[in-house]
């Protein structure tokens, strides 16, 4: 039971302070790490961006989308195709990737917005699986099951550390944009839609229009994640699209906390760190992460950060009953 505005309280928790600390760690520590850890940190950044795209829809708009993998994949494949088959510049390829993902998000969003609940989840996953299927079966252009290999970032970014700083810049930018959206009037309109879609309509919020815009923004962010991931991994494969890929950002947001600003990033960090640890001992990572997600959804639906935040608030503030004058 939260007693105060937990989002405002998290500012009391020193959200800005944490962000600062995080920024310092993110900038200063990597040069001291080995290559393996730099690459891991880079992955964390990409997955954080990806996870934020999912939690925008799930945590703040209340819609569970299983389709984010589509936009990640579209962004990635467009960048891959442009970088391997043409000689366009790297920034152009990234922008094109994001643009492509955004367009696909607009097309699928137009239809998804017109459904609710479980149908929304299924329709969004259909949107993702169509992309998956096309990339999987098209050998002539898209490389089929093996994808498109040999994708290289420009020489300036080809080092692990330099690409890391590049990803860090992008991730920081996305985090700021995410923060801005979530705390803006638009973001609050999404929260109204999440909490009480009926009431939101009746106070005059154009629900469909705002949901569509949120959907497209989320698709763009997912596309951006895919676009910067592909030159990093040097390859794009069909497994970067589709339903399974779409579950990852959702799971990460849920683990970290869908309604907390740093939730997706925290979830992504936990996921990737745990994965790298588990995989050194056994190949059976899915059973581990599946169990963890299950436990969290069953017992900690607010995610790890949500739980911490709730405890912090509860310990610090009196109940409304205690502060109100007796009737």
């Amino acid at each position, binding site marked *: 039971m*939260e007693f*105060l505005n937990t989002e405002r309280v998290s500012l009391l928790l020193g959200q800005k302070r944490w962000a600062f600390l995080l920024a310092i760690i993110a900038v200063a520590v990597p040069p001291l790490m080995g290559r393996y850890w730099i690459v891991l940190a880079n992955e964390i950044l990409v997955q954080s961006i990806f996870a934020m795209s999912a939690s925008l829809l799930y945590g703040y708009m209340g819609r569970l989308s299983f389709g984010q993998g589509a936009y990640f994949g579209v962004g990635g494949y467009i960048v891959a195709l442009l970088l391997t088959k043409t000689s366009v510049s790297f920034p152009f390829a990234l922008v094109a990737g994001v643009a492509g993902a955004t367009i696909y998000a607009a097309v699928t969003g137009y239809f998804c917005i017109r459904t609710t609940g479980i149908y929304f989840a299924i329709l969004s996953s259909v949107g993702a699986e169509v992309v998956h299927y096309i990339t999987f079966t098209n050998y002539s252009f898209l490389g089929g099951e093996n994808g498109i290999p040999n994708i290289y970032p420009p020489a300036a970014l080809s080092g692990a550390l330099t690409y890391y700083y590049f990803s860090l810049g992008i991730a920081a930018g996305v985090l700021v944009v995410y923060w801005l959206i979530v*705390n*803006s009037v638009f973001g609050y309109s999404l929260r109204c839609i999440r909490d009480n879609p009926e009431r939101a309509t009746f106070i005059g*919020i154009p629900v469909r229009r705002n949901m569509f815009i949120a959907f497209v923004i989320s698709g763009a962010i997912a596309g951006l994640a895919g676009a910067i991931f592909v030159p990093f991994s040097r390859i794009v494969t069909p497994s970067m699209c589709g339903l399974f890929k779409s579950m990852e950002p959702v799971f990460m947001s849920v683990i970290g906390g869908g309604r907390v600003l740093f939730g997706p990033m925290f979830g992504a960090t936990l996921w990737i760190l745990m994965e790298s640890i588990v995989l050194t001992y056994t190949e059976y990572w899915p059973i581990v992460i599946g169990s963890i997600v299950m436990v969290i959804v069953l017992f900690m639906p607010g995610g790890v950060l949500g739980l911490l935040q709730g405890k912090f608030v509860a310990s610090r503030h009196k109940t409304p009953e205690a502060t*109100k004058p007796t009737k």
Partner: protein
Amino acid sequence: MILETVGLNKTFGGITAVDKMDLIVNEGDVHAIIGPNGAGKSTFFNLVTKYLKPDAGKVIFNKEDITEMGPDRICKRGLVRSFQRASIYPMLTAYESVQMSLLSQEGKTLSFRLIKGLVKKETEEILESVGLTEQAGFLGASLSQGDKKRLELAITLGNRPKLLLLDEPTAGMSHEETKSIMELISSMSERHGLTVLFCEHDMSVVFGIAKRITVMHQGAIIADGKPEEVRKSTRVKKIYLGEE
């Protein structure tokens, strides 16, 4: 005349819930619709506010035909409804809930400006008028039942209504709460020139503040006029015999 319905009709299956109703609401009135359970009061409200689509008839608000408009556009024009069961936002604070109504009415829901600090004065005014100043920072879900009802009203007021439709506003309230809410409503009406149309069960509430009363029975109007006239009507007495 701020609201007029012409031949408003709605049937469910074989039952006519609202039977070709012609109703006029005058500007500035506190207008009550009363009637026994199943008379069609809530259905009528739902038709006017487009929660339900009318089968036939017209709804004219401020000389504009709003029959084909959706709920969000009607709200922007000043026809605002509240819900019988407090329909609030569990995870928004009382303050933010009122802010959103105000901002939505100003058409700003697409703005990426931070919400903090916007429409501060108006929000505080509204919260004060419903008595929720202390609870402004509390999340909707953690408010008491009575406060939820106040918040419900505050959210509605945030839309700066010209005509306020209240669906059983005192349902489930204690005697004192009912009194204070009703005082609030009638002071709102006087102070801001707000027209209020509400439906109620509690007769004492109705006869206390309503300037005009419409009595519904089985989907149709059986009496309409000033409280004294309605009270004297034999037809009304017959319908209500044993109902009190």
